[in-house]
């Protein structure tokens, strides 16, 4: 089973045998891959009960909960990595969630769709309408993405919060794109962060 491109990047860069919290773990695909390939002790947090049931059925340890409200229940530095994939833009307070990730994990992986990708820009520029693209497939009124973010916005938030970037990957579909002009050319991004 192949992982979503951002998850494949994360899976390839998590140290074997480490402890991981996957926040918004969905059906547990990444956790299962980390466990099976790298012997990672993975735990998850997921809002949707059906997804949690799916994870438990895969033998994964997943708490039903919400990134905005429930990260506070985890002790400091309990994990080597906290992972937040394609979820940052759905949280009520992405800045606080980011702080929590780096409190709970020594490092954090964060992936998100880039709202400054040229297709999105074109759509807004020429269409004057909220973009509906491959990575942002849902109309504005129904989308779970309540805090759209661009790669440059995210970098600015990191700088403001004093968060260090250990590594960053930029992708279009499942293909890597260069860091140059990533804010224009990348559909989505993965950051490895630390304090």
């Amino acid at each position, binding site marked *: 089973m192949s992982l979503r491109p951002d998850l494949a990047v994360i899976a390839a860069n998590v140290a074997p045998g480490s402890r991981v919290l996957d926040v918004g773990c969905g059906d547990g695909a990444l956790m299962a891959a980390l466990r099976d390939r790298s012997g990672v002790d993975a735990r998850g947090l997921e809002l949707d009960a059906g997804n*949690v049931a799916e994870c438990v059925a895969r033998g994964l340890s997943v708490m039903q909960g919400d990134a905005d409200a429930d990260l506070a229940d985890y002790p400091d530095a309990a994990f080597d990595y906290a992972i937040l994939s394609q979820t940052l833009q759905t949280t009520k307070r992405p800045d606080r969630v980011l702080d929590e990730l780096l409190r709970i994990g020594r490092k954090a992986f964060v992936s998100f769709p880039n709202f400054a990708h040229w297709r999105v820009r074109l759509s807004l520029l020429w269409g004057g309408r909220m973009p509906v693209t491959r990575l942002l497939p849902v109309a504005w009124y129904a989308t779970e993405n309540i805090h759209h973010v661009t790669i440059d916005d995210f970098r600015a938030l990191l700088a403001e919060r004093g968060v260090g970037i250990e590594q960053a990957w930029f992708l279009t579909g499942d293909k890597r794109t260069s860091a140059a002009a990533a804010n224009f050319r990348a559909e989505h991004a993965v950051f490895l962060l630390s304090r």
Partner: protein
Amino acid sequence: MAEADPLARSRSLTLAEPLALDSGQALTGVEIAFETYGELAADKANAILLFHALTGDQYAASPHPKTGKPGWWARMIGPGKPIDTNRFHVICANIVGGCMGSTGPASPAADGQPYAMRFPVITIRDMVRAQVALLDALGIARLHAAVGGSMGGMQALSLAANFAERTSAALVIAATARHSAQNIAFHEVGRQAIMADPKWNGGDYYGPCGQTSKGPEAGLAVARMAAHITYLSEAGLTEKFGRRLQDRESKTFGFDADFQIESYLRHQGLSFTDRFDANSYLYITRAMDYFDLAEEHGGRLSDAFAGTGARFCLVSFDTDWLYPTPESRHIAHALNASGAPVSCVELSAPYGHDSFLLDVPALDRVIAGFLQQ
């Protein structure tokens, strides 16, 4: 559906050692009646200990000898079912204090007369101690999993906390780590209903040699009626009964069971008295009220799980107001704090607390998945 598992076996044994109790007393010659389903593997590593709820018993997947009804979890246990007896050896024992073959208030004391109220007050941990002694007698060092719903879930938690080396996993459904004031309140209503029945007679209503004579059936029925309400959801009651009348066109302006819900509760209460001993009901509800797992471990629930190496799965139901989801989450947070692998999920089901006994396909998936590891 009701077909019996050909591998079901009814068994009973007497504990060789006295059972030391939390009260400081001890019970000697404790008899444990239990059912098993599926074969025990040669290495004895495939055993699942299933704990029953307050009014449950060991007949989890075999027909009840008194009512003839299928076991209370027949839908869950059997070949190819979520608790797969092709793979697992399932043990379900009647709790100490119960009335289906294990030593309880109706059992004869040393003088040959029923214990009645001379039976010592027991705790959830005492019930678990008895079952651990049963495992010792069966030569089972470590369970594949301890499983239970409601009071059964309390016992599964207690086993994982107090006998950490005895299980690799605990599956705790619709349960709590302590009884709330509201939980205690409902139980007290039930106990007072029993004790207010003149036929209770200070607990001394057994015939000679423990043969059941007519005890406080009216009181026990009322206790069951009150408790039964707490097992159902308001929406479930409304859907099932609404304000519909029972076999009549209009209200009678009397106190007969005009409404279907009244008739249903009366039936639940009366049929319960055919299979349950009133004194057992007093003792078991007391044990549940005394249950506070954190209190047993210095007040911090996470300390209760400090020594555990088990995996945990906590399941709650969105319509269960007896042990609502925050109770499960409270346990899950304590387990997280102690570093144990824990899953916690609230399933959607319309049946209230009783959802764990009823047809909730998502529960089947969670149980099968959690146990297959």
